[in-house]
Structures are given as structure tokens and as C-alpha cells.
């Protein structure tokens, strides 16, 4: 149990060759069949995506006159240029960054703090604390939204933080709900991870007279780097991908991050399917880049929390 999290990570990350299977064998028909099945499945899974890409790359005039299921005469990026300019994409991307970056950093910091407390100091309530956070994370957002919406309409924020003077319609409010929600998952993962760090390490620091804050910042946090990398990747994608909170908790569309803004934009600016496709795909590009660059981290983060036990 103790050394589980890192061990699992390694095994998930590396597709460990199993010596027994590795021995060269003759190509069996079953294997061929399996490859056919998997390629067909992979292709079927890609079709909706590829269709959107294909639609986005063709000029509207051509598809309007010749139909969509035709061989293209022209392939063009103009839909992307138009979507980028007409719908003010840079503005919405910036909104997304303003929400995602602070939310991820705060979530990881707070979650690390709770995990540190729960794993290093054996207080009576640590299990209850962990369960509270994890259970909160699993609740459907819609089960809280009615009172939360009222709360946001009544909770004041200083004017320099929010021009509405309220949590409602302010990036701070949306960051706060992300932090509150995502802390649960990250605490769960990080406490599993910190449990694998031997107590002797912090005890030695204690003997040297290091105060608690130094144990936390200089010993525990650096040791958790792999878990942070995985969680940061995963949480960035999740928070960037959030649709619901930003849709409900912002009144004005112009403050919304890109993921929830496209719902409005599709009616206002994207008057044809080619533009909708380009706009929607552009929204997905940051997450796709992050995923392809940090695929191992993403999958490790997703399975870290769940593959224990």
C-alpha cells in the first residue's frame, strides 16, 4: 500500500514489455483480426473529429454550392482567420488564461497543504477531512448551483477585484469555485502520494530544528514534483474545458473564457457550419497541444486518483 502511487505511475507511464510476450512468435490470424478491429475502431472514433476538420478547411461558398460530401477544390485556412478576427478569439483565450492559471496554481497549493497536514500530522479528523473534500469533489455542480448563484449575487468583492462589486460576474468568483471543487480530487491524489514519502525525512528536518513551513516548502513540495506535473496537466485541461461554471456565473459573454463563450459566438458570429467548425476546433487546440506534449502526465494524473487499491 505504502509505495503504491509511484510504482503505479511508472508502470502506467512505461508500456512495460512483458518478457514472456516479447518472444517472437508467428503472426497469428487472431492478432491480425485484433489489429483490424482496433484500426477500424480508432478510425470510427476519429471520424466525427476529422469531419469537423474537413468542414473547417473548406470555403463556405464551395460547400454551399457543391455540397459537403464532395471532393474539395480548395482547402483554405480562411475560416480560421475569420473566426479568429470576427469573434475576437485572442480576447477569449486571454480570459481563459486569466482563470485557468491562477485556479490551477491555487488548487495545487491548497491541496498540497491539506495533504501535508493529513499525512504528516496524525490528527483525529484527518480521515473525515479527506472524505469531506473528496465527496465534495464528486457532487454534481448542478446540485449546488441554485444557492451558489444566490450566494454569488450577495457576496461582495472590492471594486478593484470585480467591477460588479460581487462574486457574480467576476473572474475571481469563477476561480474560487474551481479551487473549491478541484481541491478535493487533488488532495486525494496528493495525500496518496505524500504517504509514500518516508516519515524519517521530515523527522530528520525536525531534529535539525526546521520549522513546519520549511518542511512543507523545502522538503515535501519538491518531492511531490511528479505528482504536481501530472495534476497540473490534468487540472489545466479540466479547468480550461469547464463550460458550466463560467456559463452560469458570468452575466456578460465578453468576460467568459473561450470554452463557454463559443456557445454565444456560434449564434452571433459563426453564421455557417464551416466557421462553427473552425471556431470549435480552435478552442480545442490548446488542450490538444498540452495533451500531445504531456500525454504521459495527463494519463498518469487521471489514473493516479483512481488506480489505487
Amino acid at each position, binding site marked *: 500500500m505504502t509505495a503504491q502511487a509511484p510504482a503505479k505511475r511508472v508502470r502506467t507511464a512505461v508500456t512495460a514489455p512483458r518478457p514472456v510476450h516479447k518472444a517472437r512468435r508467428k503472426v497469428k490470424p487472431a492478432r491480425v483480426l485484433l489489429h483490424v478491429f482496433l484500426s477500424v475502431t480508432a478510425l470510427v472514433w476519429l471520424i466525427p473529429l476529422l469531419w469537423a476538420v474537413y468542414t473547417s478547411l473548406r470555403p463556405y461558398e464551395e460547400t454551399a454550392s457543391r455540397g459537403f460530401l464532395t471532393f474539395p477544390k480548395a482547402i483554405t485556412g480562411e475560416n480560421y482567420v475569420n473566426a479568429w478576427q470576427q469573434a475576437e478569439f485572442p480576447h477569449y483565450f486571454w480570459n481563459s488564461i486569466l482563470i485557468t492559471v491562477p485556479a490551477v496554481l491555487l488548487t495545487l497549493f491548497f491541496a498540497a497543504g491539506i495533504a501535508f497536514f493529513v499525512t504528516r500530522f496524525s490528527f483525529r479528523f484527518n480521515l473525515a477531512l479527506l472524505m469531506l473534500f473528496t465527496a465534495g469533489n464528486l457532487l454534481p455542480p448542478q446540485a449546488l448551483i441554485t444557492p451558489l448563484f444566490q450566494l454569488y449575487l450577495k457576496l461582495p468583492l472590492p471594486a478593484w477585484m470585480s467591477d460588479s462589486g460581487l462574486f457574480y460576474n467576476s473572474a475571481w468568483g469563477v476561480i474560487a469555485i474551481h479551487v473549491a471543487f478541484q481541491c478535493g480530487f487533488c488532495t486525494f491524489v496528493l495525500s496518496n502520494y505524500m504517504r509514500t514519502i518516508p516519515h524519517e525525512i521530515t523527522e530528520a528536518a525536525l531534529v535539525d530544528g526546521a520549522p513546519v513551513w520549511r518542511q512543507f516548502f523545502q522538503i515535501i513540495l519538491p518531492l511531490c514534483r511528479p505528482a504536481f506535473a501530472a495534476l497540473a496537466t490534468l487540472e489545466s485541461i479540466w479547468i480550461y474545458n469547464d463550460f458550466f461554471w463560467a456559463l452560469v456565473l458570468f452575466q456578460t459573454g465578453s468576460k467568459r473564457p473561450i470554452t463557454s463563450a463559443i456557445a454565444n459566438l456560434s449564434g452571433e458570429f459563426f453564421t455557417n457550419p464551416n466557421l462553427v467548425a473552425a*471556431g470549435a476546433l480552435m478552442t480545442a487546440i490548446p488542450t490538444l497541444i498540452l495533451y500531445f506534449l504531456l500525454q504521459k502526465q495527463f494519463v498518469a494524473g487521471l489514473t493516479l486518483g483512481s488506480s489505487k487499491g
Partner: protein
Amino acid sequence: MTSTTKAAGRPVRRRKMRRLTGRDKLVLGLLVGIPLVIHLALVWFPALASVFLSFTNWDGIGLNTIHGAGLSQYEQAFTNDPSFWPAVTNNVLWLVFLLALPTPFGIFLAYQLDKNIRFSRFYQTAIFLPMVISLAVVGFIWQIFYQPDYGLLNSLLGTNNPNGTYLDWLGDPKLNLGAVLVAAGWRHTAYIMILYLAGLKSFDPSLREAAAIDGANERQTFFRITFPSLRPVNVIILVVTVLEGLRAFDLVYVMGGNTGSKQGLELLSILITNNIVGESGKVGYGSALAVILLIVSLVVIIPYLVQNFRKEQR
């Protein structure tokens, strides 16, 4: 191993507690206190407030206008609201569908991909892509796919003729739930596949080989050896699937045309959101719907966590 270190470690930690200085206690208090306050105020307080407000008919304007209304909000939902029962039915259908098709298929794919085959990485990446993209974008992608006049599906089927067969996949109340479920299943399969794949990696392959030597065929090996021994992963998958079924919102919102409400696509989550975003200000009624959602979720979450953490304590 854990129990021995714990037993030996307990007195040591007791001593350490006494050695904490006032400043140490302050640091720890802040490290836990700040997130705890945020979490309680923004997650559990609203959850409990939902329960309280569901017995009132508050309009949301002033706190002094909260008046008790007994069970009338629930009565309203059960007997008066024409979209309540369709929403419950659709939520149940959503759940049953996820459990019946995408979940087993995801497990099946994971099992095949775990066979140490070539190109496994490529297959995984392709199938997993829907999980990386936001549900809103998934909604748009499928909207383009289903678009009645020029979408791929109708173009291939030839069902885009306004004078002949014309299938409006997302508009027709008889078709739209099925169409959205396909999109939901597309994504859910990917999720289950990756979760199960991680579980399989921790599974001792020698067990499988032993079964093969004993003459068990693949099916027997899976159902009698692999599947039962992955019980923790199976439980997680079940919980994830149920919660996905209850949380479903984004896809329906986008594919239903960004209005949030379309005949045939009613869901509890959508009804709740309509109640707060609209000007009707029916806080009490929205809360009553939320409580129903909350109860069903907690019925799944609590046993799962209790079982999970009890194991941890040992």
C-alpha cells in the same frame, strides 16, 4: 507494512506534536483553514442550503422573503411540471445507456489494448482524443456531424431531402436523445478505456498465464480471473459512470441549440439551470430539483468513500 510503521510511529508523532511552536501551528492552521473555509462555503454550504431552500418558496430577492412552503415544491415537481418526469426518465436512460454499451465496450477495448500489441499507443491516442476535448466542443463537433442539411450522417444516408426523407437528428424529440447519447458514449468509452487500462497494468500477468496453462479460454480468463480481481477498478468505473449520468449537462446544452431546453432532451441538471438563469426566480423549486439530484449522488458517493477509506485505514 503500513500497520507496523503506524504502530511504531504513533508515539514519535505524539512527541512531535508537542514540539510544534506557535508559529508552526499558525502555518498549519492557515494551510488547512483557508482551503477548508473556501470548500465548505462554496460546496457544502450551498448543498445544505439547497435542502433548506427546497422547503421554502423564496424568490431570491431579499432574505426576509424566505417563507416556508412545506413539501409544495416537491409536489409541484411530481405532479405539475410537465418536464419533470421526462427529465427523470432521460437521466435514467442516460445512465442505463452508459452502463450497457460504452462502459463494457471501454473495458473490452482496454483488455484488447493490454495485450502488448504493436501500435497500441496509436490506437489509445486516437480513441482517447474525445476525453481531451471539452464537452462543449464535443457538442459542436457532433452538431456538425448531425446537421440535417449538410452533416455527414444525412449526406451519407441521403436523408437530407426536404421534400422526401428529412431526418432532423437534434430537433426531432424522438431522435435527439439517441443522437446525443451516441456523442456521450463516444466520450465515455474513451474514459473507461483509459481507467481500465491503468487497472490492467497493475494486474499480475502471471495469473492470466496460469489460467491459460490450465486450459481456460480467453473469455473464461477474463470473466473468472481478470474481472473479479480488478474489483477496486470496477467499483471506480461504476461510480464514475453513475456520476457522469447525473452530471450530464454541457452536451445537451450545446447540442440542444444553446437554449438549454429542448423537447426530448430534458434532464434534471438542465431544469435546475433554467430555473436560476431565467428571471422566474424560483429558488425554492430549483432547490427541490437539486435535492433530488443531491440525494441520488450521495447514495453512490458515500458508500464508495466509506469503503475506500476504510480500506485505507487498515
